[in-house]
C-alpha cells in the first residue's frame, strides 16, 4: 500500500464507481458524471472517452481506443496517451474504478 497506484492500462476494464452515473442535464445542456455529493461536467471529448472506454459492456480500454481512433479519424498513437491520462484522472477523482 505504500506505492503510488499505477496508471490505467489498455488491458484494464474500468467501470463507473458505486453511486456514479452518466446523466444528461437538459436544463444546463450538459453531460455529466453524477456521483456522491459531486458532479463532473464532461466536454465532448470526455463524454466520448467515457462512452467508449467505461462500462460493463467494454472489452477493455484498448478496444475503446480502437473505436475512438476510427470514429474521430485520429491516429491511435496520438490519442492513446490522452485517453489513458483522462481515465486515470477519472479514477483518481473517484468516478471510475478498475
Amino acid at each position, binding site marked *: 500500500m505504500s506505492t503510488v497506484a499505477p496508471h490505467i492500462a489498455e488491458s484494464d476494464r474500468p467501470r463507473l464507481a458505486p453511486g456514479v452515473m452518466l446523466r444528461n442535464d437538459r*436544463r444546463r445542456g450538459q453531460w455529466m458524471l*453524477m*456521483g456522491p*455529493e459531486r*458532479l463532473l461536467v464532461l466536454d465532448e471529448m470526455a463524454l466520448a472517452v467515457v462512452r467508449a472506454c467505461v462500462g460493463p459492456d467494454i472489452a477493455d480500454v484498448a478496444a475503446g481506443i480502437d473505436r475512438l481512433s476510427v470514429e474521430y479519424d485520429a491516429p491511435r498513437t496520438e490519442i492513446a496517451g490522452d485517453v489513458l491520462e483522462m481515465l486515470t484522472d477519472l479514477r*483518481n477523482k473517484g468516478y471510475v474504478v478498475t
Partner: protein
Amino acid sequence: MSCALPAFAAATQTEPAPPFAVLMELTHRCPLRCPYCSNPLALDPASAELDTATWKRVLDEAADVGALQVHFSGGEPCVRKDLEELVAHATEIGLYSNLITSAVLLDRPRLERLQRAGLQHVQISLQDAEAGGADRIGGFKGGHAKKLEVARAVVAQGLALTINAVLHRHNIERVNDVIDLAMDLGAGRIEIANVQYYGWALANRAALMPSRDQLLAMDAAVRARLPELAGRIVVDYVVPDYYARRPKSCMGGWARRFMNVTPHGRVLPCHAAETIPGLAFETVHDRSLSDIWRDGPAFTRYRGTGWMPDPCRSCDHQEEDWGGCRCQALALAGSADATDPVCELSSAHADVAALRDRDAAALGTEWTYRGL
C-alpha cells in the same frame, strides 16, 4: 451617484445559476450527542417537523429550481419513518439522493429498502478510529461497532460509501488509523473533517481545539499519504480554519451552490446562517424554493462580490473563496459583513490565532453534550 449601483443592477437583473444541491435537515433528533454537532443550540422539536407531504413538495421545488442532488441530513434522518418514501419521491423526479447519517439506526433490511427506493450514496460519520473514544464523545454506547457493521453492509450492497471522520484534540493523533479503517471498510471517499466551530462545536471549542503541534503532525501525516491514496480512496482534506492562512470557500460561495431547509421549513443559504442577526429567512410555506433562490433577502445579501468590504473588494481571490464564511466572520470578527478573519489579510486575523492558542492551551476535557 453611487458606485454600488452597477453591482446592484447586475444582481437584480441576472438570474442566478441554479443550485447544485438542496440539503434537507429532516429532523434535529439524533441518538448521538456529539459536542461538535453543527445543529443550532436551539433545536427544532419533533412536533415542529415538516410532514411527509410537505417534504415531497419541497423535493419537487428542489427539482424545479434546478438542483441535481438532495442530501437527506439532520440530526439523524433515519429517525424519520418516511425516509424511504422521500428517497423514492426524489428518485422519481430525477434527483440524486445522498444520505448523511450516523448509521446507528440503520440495518441491512432498511438499507435494502432505501436502495430499492433509489438511494445512491451513504455518508457515515465516525467519531474515532477506536470504540472507546468514539462512544465516549458520541455519548452513545455501542455506536462505533454499529457504524462499522452498517458501513460494511453499505459497500456489500453496492452503494457508494463516504466516511466522514471528525477530528479534534482527543482523536487527531489517530488520523492514520481512521484512514486505514475507511479503506478497510471499502469507502470510496473519506472526508478528513477537522471540527468546524459552529453551533455546539463553538460552545465547546475550549474542549476540542487541537494544539499547534497536534495540527502540524496531522497535516504532515495526511500530506505524506496523499500520493499513495490517489486512485484508491478520494480524500477531501483542508487545513482547519483556525490554523489556515486563507479562508475556505464556504458552501462554494454564499447562495451559489446550496440551499438548506431546516426541520421546520426555514430556507437558508447554509445550515449556520440563522446565527446571523438581521437576516430575514423565508420558509417553505411562504414562497417556492425557486423564488427564494432568485431573490430571497437572505440569499441575495451575500451572493457574489457586491457586498464585499476591503480587503476582499480588491482581492484577486474574491471569486475563489468568496470572502470565506459569513457565520465565522460574525463569530470571530463580530460582523457577518466582514472578511472572514481566517484570512491573513483580515485585520482580525491575529485575534483568531490568539483565541485558538488560548483554547488549545486550556486543555479542557469537559464538554457539554448536545441536547434533545
